[in-house]
């Protein structure tokens, strides 16, 4: 269940992220267009007044021109400023604060001023361009910013909610498939438990001493296969149900637990002629017994799986920890970090799904255990599990 919900959540977050990003771009474009529109509306609303002012200046220029500049006093007004430029954009006279005039636009806003450029029919005093400058109080801009903030936020919220429901709709078929698959795995594993337990229980009741050696060997193989299926069943159950499994914390005697699990895997180890040695010191851990058994089983299972035929497994307990060391293929340093990831397998030639060490890490995290890997290629791998007192 965890796998499917996580991937669904990730897909949901990714889609929503992209959706919101695109929405923001649309919002930015819409805001910019709205700003441009409002600015143009403001500028054109000022146009008649600006034209009137330009006319006043031109009228005065005409008088100056007709006097052949005997009258050379340039008109000054309290409400606006003006300047005159010739056909080559050379300044003839200016009362403006700036000399940077954009002659490509006849009406524009720059800084906190509005500029209007008028071309008289005749160039009095050589003035082809009469520039009028009026201050802009920017009250319209405050209103535009407020509207963008309010309506932009509302639009964003609306689009986010809409996006969330759309994503839910799109992901529903995928989620249904996940749930179906999940239930199928759950049911299948549950149905596996009874026959496997029956096989194991019955094998244990058979006295192999009285059997023909060939039959005993075949029975041993059946035992190994059944135990392997049982381990897989327990792993899958843990993986699917670990969130719902309550932890019963108890003070576990790790020597007793490890001895029990070693005994459980003895048949499997014997099949590869692996010798297991167990060195004991007092060792106790406060945790859930079933879950710690899962952790130990996976470490022992790997130690057997990746060991060579006729190899050894050393198990040692000490105060606040234990280690399991095999004489197998070893783990390359670059792979040591990633082997705890789900579906990561060291060697594809060996069986399994690559979930064992992931389960080990999950259990270790739950109970605050540290796991250290010491390994040398084709020599050994030592998995040391330690915990705080």
């Amino acid at each position, binding site marked *: 269940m965890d796998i499917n919900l996580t991937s669904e959540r990730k897909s949901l977050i990714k889609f929503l992220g992209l959706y919101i990003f695109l929405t923001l771009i649309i919002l930015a474009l819409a805001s910019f267009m709205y700003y441009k529109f409002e600015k143009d509306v403001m500028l054109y609303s000022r146009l008649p007044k600006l034209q009137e002012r330009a006319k006043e200046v031109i009228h005065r220029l005409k008088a100056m*021109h007709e006097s052949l500049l005997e009258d050379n006093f340039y008109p000054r007004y309290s409400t606006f400023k003006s300047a005159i430029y010739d056909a*080559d954009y050379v*300044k*003839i006279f200016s009362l403006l604060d700036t000399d940077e005039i954009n002659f490509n636009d006849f009406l524009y806003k720059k800084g906190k001023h509005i500029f209007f450029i008028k071309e008289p029919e005749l*160039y009095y*005093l*050589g003035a082809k361009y009469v520039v009028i400058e009026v201050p802009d109080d920017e009250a319209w801009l405050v209103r535009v910013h407020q509207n963008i903030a309010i309506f932009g936020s509302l639009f964003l919220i609306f689009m986010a909610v809409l996006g969330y429901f759309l994503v839910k709709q799109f992901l529903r078929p995928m989620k249904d498939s996940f749930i179906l698959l999940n239930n199928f795995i759950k049911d299948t594993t549950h149905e596996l438990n009874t026959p496997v337990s029956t096989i194991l229980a019955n094998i244990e009741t058979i006295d192999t001493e009285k059997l023909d050696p060939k039959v005993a060997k075949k029975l041993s193989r059946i035992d190994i296969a059944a135990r392997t299926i049982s381990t897989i069943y327990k792993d899958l159950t843990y993986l699917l149900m670990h969130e719902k499994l309550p932890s019963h914390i108890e003070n576990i005697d790790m020597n007793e637990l490890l001895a029990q699990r070693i005994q459980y895997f003895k048949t499997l180890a014997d099949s590869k002629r692996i010798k297991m040695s167990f060195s004991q010191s007092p060792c106790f851990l406060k945790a859930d017994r079933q879950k710690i058994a899962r952790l130990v089983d996976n470490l022992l299972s790997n130690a057997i799986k990746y060991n060579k035929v006729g190899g050894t497994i050393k198990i040692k307990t000490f105060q606040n920890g234990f280690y399991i060391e095999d004489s197998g293929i070893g783990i390359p340093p670059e792979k040591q970090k990633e082997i705890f990831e789900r579906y990561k397998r060291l060697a594809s030639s060996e069986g399994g799904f690559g979930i064992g060490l992931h389960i080990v890490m999950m259990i270790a995290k739950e109970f605050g255990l540290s796991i250290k890997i010491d390994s040398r290629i084709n020599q050994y791998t030592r998995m040391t599990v330690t915990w705080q007192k």
Partner: protein
Amino acid sequence: MAKIVLQLLLALSLFGADIFTQKCVRCHTRRHLPLKPIFFDYLLYYSSERAVKEAMLRNLTHPDPKRMLVKKRKPYKHRFDAKTLRKALDIYWEKYKVIGKIR
């Protein structure tokens, strides 16, 4: 006698004058065609220094009644070479230009 003295004084005053004063002013004064209104007429239609000088040069070297700013004036072909004319026009522009004279 007095007339001779006056002509002598005039000749002496023109001796150190530039080409514009020597030729243009003198001739235009004699023909009662003041230069300042002509300058302002050109300014009214051509605006910039470059455009005004180009138009003046064109009209002085290749006068065309169709292009005359003031129709009642008669086209007059000047006999100065282009270099001399340009020099005279530069002085003309500097004398009557608007830039720097508005207050």
